[in-house]
């Protein structure tokens, strides 16, 4: 048992896998000598050397393309895109090449690679350094998508992502890097595709991801303290594979669903979860399916504005309360 920050958990997860498998290599801008601009790869260069931990030029297409070429020829690259917004400059490599090549070649080409990225808002970095791109990836067949909310899950899901024979996008939430928690010693592996019920409840199901999980929990506690509805909070943890079994089971029990998404309004993972419930569990529902999201605008740099944009515990409490009252 050791106290670990979410930031340190990233490096621990990568190191755990580099130790057991010499084919695991890491590349990205400033990840080696500097240990990463978010200090998420600290110590890897010292432990594994420059052959396995590589600093790159500012060439995202080459970083991701090189990871793909290395993966199809026997390595297990872990590539960093410093900020998830930079998927924009490498999107062809991710969406058109990496996601489609195994399928197009009828299984001839294997791409066991991981793309790690600092995702999400809350750090006042403005519209080009704060996006949540988990939806971009979820919409592309051939990509698996992971977004841990705790240091323990970060270690364990990073391990599974690196061991996975298919491409996995690991979203590391910027605003969680400083979070601390006790994490078991020894090897940790958390399988992909298993949501976690982080709080049991009876009146409504709240599905959240990454930085929205602690906010959903806070809202649930506050409602409980004030005799409000009892919320069951689910941390999806991975978007692909998507654990709808856990979500549907909970919704059939509570007959209410709220999703809490950081990404802009349209076409988010919440819309996908809601749509599946609306097709498969509509007769179990007592009321509308409600998505709580950032409005459909970019994130602003100013703290007052950004805090007003991203879903907060307060907003979750308000929306849940008004919805349950209006339609109870």
């Amino acid at each position, binding site marked *: 048992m050791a106290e670990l920050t979410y930031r340190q958990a990233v490096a621990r997860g990568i190191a755990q896998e580099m130790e057991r498998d010499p084919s695991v290599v890491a590349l990205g801008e400033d990840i080696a000598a500097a240990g990463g601009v978010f200090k998420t790869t600290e110590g890897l260069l010292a432990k594994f050397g420059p052959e396995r931990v590589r600093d790159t030029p500012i060439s995202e*297409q*080459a970083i991701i*393309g090189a990871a793909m*070429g290395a993966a199809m*020829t026997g*390595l297990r690259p872990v590539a960093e895109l410093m900020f998830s917004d930079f998927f924009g400059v490498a999107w062809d490599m991710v969406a058109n*090449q990496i996601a489609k090549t195994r399928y197009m070649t009828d299984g*001839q080409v294997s791409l066991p690679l991981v793309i790690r990225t600092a995702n999400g808002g809350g750090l006042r970095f403005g519209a080009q350094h704060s996006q949540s791109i988990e939806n971009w990836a979820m919409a592309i067949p051939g990509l698996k998508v992971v977004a841990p909310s705790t240091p323990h899950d970060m270690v364990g899901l990073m391990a599974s992502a690196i061991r996975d*024979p298919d491409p996995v996008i690991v979203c590391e939430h910027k605003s969680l890097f400083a979070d601390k928690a006790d994490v078991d010693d020894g090897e940790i592996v958390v399988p992909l595709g298993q949501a976690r019920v982080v709080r049991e409840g009876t009146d409504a199901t709240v599905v959240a991801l990454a930085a929205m999980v602690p906010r959903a929990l806070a809202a649930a506690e506050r409602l409980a303290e004030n005799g409000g509805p009892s919320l069951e909070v689910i941390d999806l943890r991975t978007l692909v594979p998507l*654990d709808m079994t856990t979500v549907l089971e909970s919704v059939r029990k509570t007959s209410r669903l709220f999703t809490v998404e950081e990404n802009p309004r349209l076409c988010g993972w919440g819309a996908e979860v809601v749509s599946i419930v609306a097709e498969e569990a509509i007769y179990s529902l007592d009321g509308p399916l409600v998505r709580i999201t950032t409005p459909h605008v970019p994130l602003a740099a100013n703290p007052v504005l950004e805090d007003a944009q991203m879903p907060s515990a307060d907003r979750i409490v308000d929306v849940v309360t008004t919805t349950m009252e209006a339609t109870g």
Partner: protein
Amino acid sequence: MPTEQPLTDAGAAAPDVPAPEVQAAPDTELRLRMYRTMLECRLFEQRTHELFLAGLVRGTTHLGIGQEAVAAGFAAAMRPDDWTFCTYRGHNHTLARGTPMTPVLLELVGKQGALMGTKGGSMHLTSVEHGVMGSYAIVGAHLPIAVGAAWSAQYRKTDQVAVCFFGDGTTNIGSFHEALNMAVVWKAPVVFVCENNQYMEYTPIRSVTAVDRPAADRASAYGLEDLVVDGNDVEAVYAMARRTIARARAGEGPSLVEAVTYRHGGHSRADPGTYRPEEEVKAWLSRDPIPAQRARLLKAGVAEEDLARVEAEVKAAVADAEKAAREAPDPDPAVATTHLWADGGAEWRS
């Protein structure tokens, strides 16, 4: 520019060609093999085009007729475990590495037994077993990917080399620049081969490029030697391939080669290629690499009947592939949801 060059009967363009290195001079057996490879590409593609017109080949095709010498010359200099990365114009490169004609043609006609289960089609021919690591249809994408494969060879100390083929138009896209820079910085064992056939799709490369030689004039931006070869002279190509692959295998880093050539037809099956001046087309047709090599072999004392035998064998192979293509059944639609993931399936729910 080639069209202004004196056209010898052998069709070898003078100026740009570096003297083939002595130790790289191919023996008769190898010269004959390269002739056979070019012929396989040519006859296969000609038949493919006929089958397209006959409605048997569907989707699109991008033929490399006229550019066979680049594929044959490089393939002859590659080790079986070396890697080819090429484009949608990839039939030649796929066959030149030894991929059998039948599964390739089955992929083009979209029948059972196809190289890739008919999912990829003409633009994405891949045969990992033969070192053909993919035909890529988004311009420029495969250059960084080839660098990654080369990095893997370097890291695993297998001394394999990646050879990456692309067109003149590809030299103006960002990934070209990123790949070249990273390859040099990492001393990656990769050879970049620009098949300069003078055109993008319908646009002449010179009208959209800041320099005359789209690849060679960029070499210095990466500290690389400026290398140009007559892409219609298979032996000159072979010599250049030997030299650049040897450099890569020796750990001396990447090379960028500009092979000057021409496609006889249009960009794709949809294109008659009418935007090209007649004299230009005529001049290049007269520099067809295949008759040129045939003439050279005869001059070198190879017997007419030996050449005739090769030609008959290649014709027969194409005919066999066509027979298989006509007889094979359509694929099972269920194939459409296989091999998205390593487990063979396409499930996204758990």
